[in-house]
């Protein structure tokens, strides 16, 4: 007994969901993290707290609110209906939206720390060399924050692969659309198909270990380069 078709579909779908989530989050989280790192606004603390919420909340809370909000009677559901998108629950788009929220802090926080570590000095130097702020951001801040981007990308990808509660609650377990590895393992276990469960669960263990190992090695190399 090895992987069935549904299992392989679930693996593929999981990788697709995690890559897209990581990519989109890097784009969305960069301005947000930049703002959080530099602003003196009194909104900094509340916004930071909201960003960190998914770290603390049980995924069932997020899943439940998404189910209600995305549904035809919820605010997001009514918006998507008026835009002609239909209801997002039970679709890949809905899963993607859920994953973006769920993994948001894993993108914002490493980036924010990386930007903070750069400090204001390099940007000021760039300004004295008459670089416009936007040029300075792309030519000075972004390259200096590269380790933060690596960490953010790897963490959001891995965290989305491990996502379970949110998918379970808004996915509807449709093969090839919303059936990801974690929910597939859950289904196998509940259906007492322990052999299939072992294959997928074991694969997840190995994958997660490799990601964390890679991250640790990367961090060590970065530390050596910087010192």
């Amino acid at each position, binding site marked *: 007994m090895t992987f069935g078709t549904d299992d392989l579909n679930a693996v593929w779908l999981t990788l697709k969901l995690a890559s897209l989530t990581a990519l989109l989050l890097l784009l969305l989280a960069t301005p947000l993290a930049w703002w959080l790192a530099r602003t003196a606004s009194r909104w900094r603390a509340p916004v930071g707290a909201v960003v960190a919420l998914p770290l603390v909340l049980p995924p069932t809370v997020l899943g439940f609110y998404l189910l209600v909000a995305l*549904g*035809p009677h919820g605010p997001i559901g009514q918006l998507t209906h008026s835009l002609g998108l239909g209801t997002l629950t039970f679709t890949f788009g809905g899963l993607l939206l859920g994953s973006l929220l769920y993994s948001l802090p894993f993108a914002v926080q490493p980036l924010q720390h990386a930007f903070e570590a750069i400090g204001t000095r390099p940007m000021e130097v760039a300004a004295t060399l008459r670089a416009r702020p936007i040029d300075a951001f792309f030519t000075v801040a972004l390259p200096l924050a590269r380790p933060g981007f690596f960490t953010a990308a790897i963490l959001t990808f891995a965290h989305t692969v491990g996502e379970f509660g949110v998918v379970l609650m808004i996915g*509807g377990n449709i093969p090839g659309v919303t059936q990801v590895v974690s*929910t597939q393992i859950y289904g196998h276990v509940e259906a007492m198909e322990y052999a299939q469960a072992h294959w997928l669960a074991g694969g997840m263990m190995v994958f997660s270990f490799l990601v964390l190992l890679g991250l640790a090695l990367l961090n060590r190399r970065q530390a050596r380069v910087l010192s």
Partner: protein
Amino acid sequence: MRFLVVLGLLAGGLARAAGVSVAVAANFAAPMQKIAQAFEQDTGHKALLAFGATGKFYALIRNGAPFQLLLAADDETPARLEKEGLAVSGSRFTYATGRLVLWSRTPGLVDQQGEVLRRGGFERLAVADPRLAPYGAAAMQVLGQLGLLQQLQPRLVQGQSIAQTYQFVATGNAALGFVALSQVMTEGQVSEGSAWIVPAKLHAPLRQDAVLLAVGRDKPAAVALAAYLQGEKARAIMRGYGYEF
């Protein structure tokens, strides 16, 4: 794992307090809460209820969860536990037969004959995962009997339990779905939306069996509850939720 340990400590502590710890199928949650109340009033024994999917309880019990009584959503799981020596042999009985209902929270969407399934006009039809939930398996049999399985397959969304399937329909994310009659019936009436109570001949009977687990052997409260479930008072409560005998 930590969950199991906590559960174990909890149930162990509860057992000493002369209660009976009961694993209850999700579809039977509402009536069982009422029955447990009546049971405590009548006998002084306290029933401590855990609700969930029967398949999950099977895995927990196999791994040493200290439940004394199992009220399953099917008749296979109790039989299997008895065969594996995890339940007291000869203690199995059918406590209720469930009914399946096609339900929508929109009034008027589901007609009395279930013609809506042929007519269409809905995007999503929710069923429980047929591998995990007997009510899901029954729903698939109904679609098969009506010759609609192929046609409706692309619109199916699956809940991991009958409770989650109800959630999909109750929040309107699925326009309609097959759920347990007990979930939408109170005091003999479907209280909200529109419903088709599926004729029992369209699917295998939803016989729900109970079994005394090895941990509950000779425990007075567990034995008393098993007897109480077969009494008239408990059955009157179950009838109000649409169960049959």
